[in-house]
């Protein structure tokens, strides 16, 4: 069994009633869901799962990275699968069944749904369990929630939806543990166990398991506070161009943006077509940007960059971006 409870070849995948198992992979923006899923898909269990990816932005940037056996994942973009794209999620799951029954795709015993960073897992789990068709074919196996060791505590404190995700978890996966001191990881794990003592907490780094703490038997989660709508003040900016960008101009712009507004830039990710360099994957959350990754596989030309921001005028942000990149 892997970090996301994907079955190995020798293990039975479907539940006792022959239903396909569903793992819900949730976690706040930038907490490492896609990185973890990529590592899991790279591990050859002999039974690759079907993958459904949900993104808050309309422009999908992770589908290229999550290809299984040459098949791209099913993409639900432009909203959260817990609310605006909930019907689409049900249709996507039904579409997998349809493709299988028509012989267009092999039977997948396991489905991984990667939710958007702003999704509440509760309504998604409800859809799978109560849809009149889906409930006979799918069974929710685990809710796995990633928590960033760098920014996880702050996200839990400031973003209600991060707390909702944590409280829904069967498995909590602390990511990026190699980027902080051991004491900080201990403090985070302690806080996670206080908030959700029924979850198993695993500490990971670069998609590899470091250690696991079992849930506290019989413990009950902390009372849930009353929460406001989870997307207040949050908007997205999607930059899609065929142009090649100058890296120096872009990096100066982004670093100055994060210097001044890092707390309100909840997420930045994308694939950039950099002049004289080629495709580069960029991934950041708040003022933490990970080292860019040079992509060597087949990547569609052009640049796709998505920003999820809070209380920032996206028209001004776009104007600022074009002004700076124009300097290159």
């Amino acid at each position, binding site marked *: 069994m892997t970090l996301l409870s994907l079955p190995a070849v020798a293990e039975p995948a479907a539940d006792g009633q022959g239903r396909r198992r569903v793992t819900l992979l949730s976690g706040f923006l930038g907490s490492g869901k896609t990185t973890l899923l990529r590592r899991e898909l790279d591990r050859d269990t002999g039974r690759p799962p079907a993958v459904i990816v949900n993104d808050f932005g309309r422009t999908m940037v992770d589908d290229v990275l999550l290809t299984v056996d040459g098949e791209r994942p099913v993409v639900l973009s432009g909203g959260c699968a817990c609310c605006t794209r909930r019907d689409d999620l049900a249709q996507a799951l039904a579409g997998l069944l349809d493709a299988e029954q028509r012989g267009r795709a092999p039977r997948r015993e396991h489905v991984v749904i990667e939710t958007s960073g702003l999704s509440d897992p509760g309504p998604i789990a409800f859809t799978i369990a109560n849809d009149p068709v889906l409930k006979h074919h799918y069974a929710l196996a685990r809710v796995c929630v990633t928590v960033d060791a760098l920014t996880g505590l702050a996200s839990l404190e400031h973003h209600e939806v991060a707390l909702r995700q944590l409280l829904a978890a069967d498995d909590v996966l602390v990511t990026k543990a190699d980027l902080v001191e051991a004491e900080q990881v201990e403090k985070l794990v302690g806080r996670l166990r206080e908030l959700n003592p029924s979850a198993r907490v695993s500490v990971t780094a670069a998609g590899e398991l470091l250690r696991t703490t079992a849930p506290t038997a019989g413990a009950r989660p902390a009372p849930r506070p009353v929460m406001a709508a989870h997307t207040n003040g949050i908007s997205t900016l999607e930059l899609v161009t065929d142009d090649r960008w*100058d*890296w*120096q*101009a872009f*990096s*100066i*712009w*982004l*670093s*100055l*943006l994060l*210097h*001044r*507004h890092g707390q309100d830039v909840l997420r930045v990710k994308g694939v950039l077509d*950099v*002049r*004289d*360099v080629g495709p*580069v994957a960029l991934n*950041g959350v708040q003022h933490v*940007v*990970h*080292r*860019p990754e*040079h992509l060597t596989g087949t990547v569609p030309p052009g640049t796709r960059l998505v920003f999820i921001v809070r209380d*920032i*005028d996206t028209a*001004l*942000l776009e*104007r*600022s971006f074009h*002004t*700076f990149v*124009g*300097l*290159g």
Partner: protein
Amino acid sequence: MCVLCYELAPDDHWSDGVSDDAARTLPGRARYRRTRLLSVVLAPYGLTVSDPGSGPQCVVADRKGAAVVAAGLPAVWRAADELSPRRLDVLDPTLLAALSPDVAE
């Protein structure tokens, strides 16, 4: 820290994580371009940026001669905040107008 000059090495920054083929044959090119672009961006705040040519640092200075040595982009922004009475902001319409005067507000 450099054992010869006792200079503190800057933290590894994401902006230094992309290099092109030309950078390997002309290692100073990316550095020159960055210094030139920083000079353009900081000029509306009355600041200059110069490259001493050795080490990872550049020098951010104001028109009265005050100067701060900065290694890496985050240090450049902190230096600019220290030297400029105006708040440095990538979303500042005045800055954007200064950088692209041909574009109407």
